[in-house]
């Protein structure tokens, strides 16, 4: 079975039977710091360096209280299920996808996301891939961008592979069970949003990826 996911002929692989190996906090820090440091130095040597990478200004921010209040409000809400920092964003993705699917424009909807982020991919990720190899692509679309670290709870990092808990499953299952106004099912999110957008990003960057959707989703470069 061809397990490569291409934007034009999408195949979803079965969820992995085995849970991915856990990574200890120490190993995670080592790997993250190692990969990030290498990537950062390499990217800084590129003509147009990555702009919004963490730049050590956290303590200088005067608006931390707003961020902290949002977290406290969010994590103090445990009914009907414990809310997380990504709740509003996840609901928005699901709602937009539900509407796009009803209107038969889900593919264009995902392509539009790739299109609007195209300049970032062209400007930063594509040159980085050319210079550092395809492994950097995952760094670029996952731990490097707010679109991911404000969406995924934690991203497990392995060379050429990222795994993370699917943020959509629980809120969608709750909505479908208790509110019942969406047409979409969980598999629609994998097939019509995540896979399409990630494959779209990969295509722009000139990389091929393999996606293994599951409660723990796995994305690896091929």
């Amino acid at each position: 079975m061809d397990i490569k996911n291409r934007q034009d002929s999408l195949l979803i692989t079965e969820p992995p039977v085995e849970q991915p190996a856990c990574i200890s906090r120490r190993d995670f820090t080592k790997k993250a710091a190692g990969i990030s440091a290498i990537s950062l130095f390499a990217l800084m040597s590129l003509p147009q360096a990555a702009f919004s990478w963490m730049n050590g200004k956290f303590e200088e921010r005067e608006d931390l209280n707003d961020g902290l209040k949002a977290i406290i409000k969010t994590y103090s809400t445990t009914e009907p299920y414990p809310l997380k920092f990504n709740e509003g964003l996840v609901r928005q993705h699901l709602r937009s996808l539900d509407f796009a699917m009803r209107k038969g424009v889900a593919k264009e909807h995902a392509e539009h996301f790739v299109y609007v982020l195209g300049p970032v991919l062209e400007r930063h990720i594509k040159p980085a891939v050319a210079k550092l190899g395809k492994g950097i692509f995952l760094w670029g679309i996952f731990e490097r961008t707010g679109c991911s670290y404000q969406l995924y709870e934690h991203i497990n990092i392995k060379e050429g592979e990222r795994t993370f808990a699917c943020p959509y499953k629980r809120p969608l299952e709750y909505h479908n069970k208790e509110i019942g106004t969406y047409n979409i099912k969980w598999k629609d999110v994998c097939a019509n949003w995540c896979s399409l957008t990630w494959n779209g990003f990969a295509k722009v960057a000139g990389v091929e990826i393999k996606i293994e959707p599951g409660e723990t989703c796995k994305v690896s470069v091929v």
Partner: protein
Amino acid sequence: MEKLNRREFAKKAFGAGGLLTLVTALNFPEAASAFSGPEVLIPSNKFLNRPDLGDALKSMYMTYDSTTPYPHKFNETITKHQLRALEFFVTKGLDKEYAEHYVTTMKPVLLKIKEALAKEKDPDKALVALIDNDPCYFQLFERIKVKTGERTFPCPYKGKLQDCKYWLGTFKAIEWKDVCNRWCIPTWTGFAETVGIKIKVQPSDDCTVKLA
């Protein structure tokens, strides 16, 4: 403002003020429970009981540590994604239906709010339910100023749309007024009608939603 060095701060904190507060607090059985150790306080505190706070704080740290080309905030992605979706549906001529879809898919929740309002007979509770306590809003608006019958919050879309237009250059179909007229106003008005209240929206850098 007077600056305190670390030593002076510690002196003041643990000196008369701190000790007096502690002694006073210990005289009140209920208040003193907070000093009895985490086993007393934590069971009743939902926030402190969450085992997943580390992930939230990491996300917050990564967000607020990113200050170029502009300072990122906790609502960075939710704002950007809403603008992106609106931009897409405007180009498809589907924006009106997109806003209606939001109201329609929320209808069962809104009807429960309507039911609760009918019992409580306090229309401000509608604003509490629709804005203050909805994660789609308290994770979107930086500060919600609460007055009875009125909520004011800084528009999260204006600056972000400018950022997207400038840094990405791929947002071409919508302007700030479109966000107000094609998204915020139709959805809020739709929610309000469904829960049985009337509102007036005054879009601005600080947007106001008032009971009409």
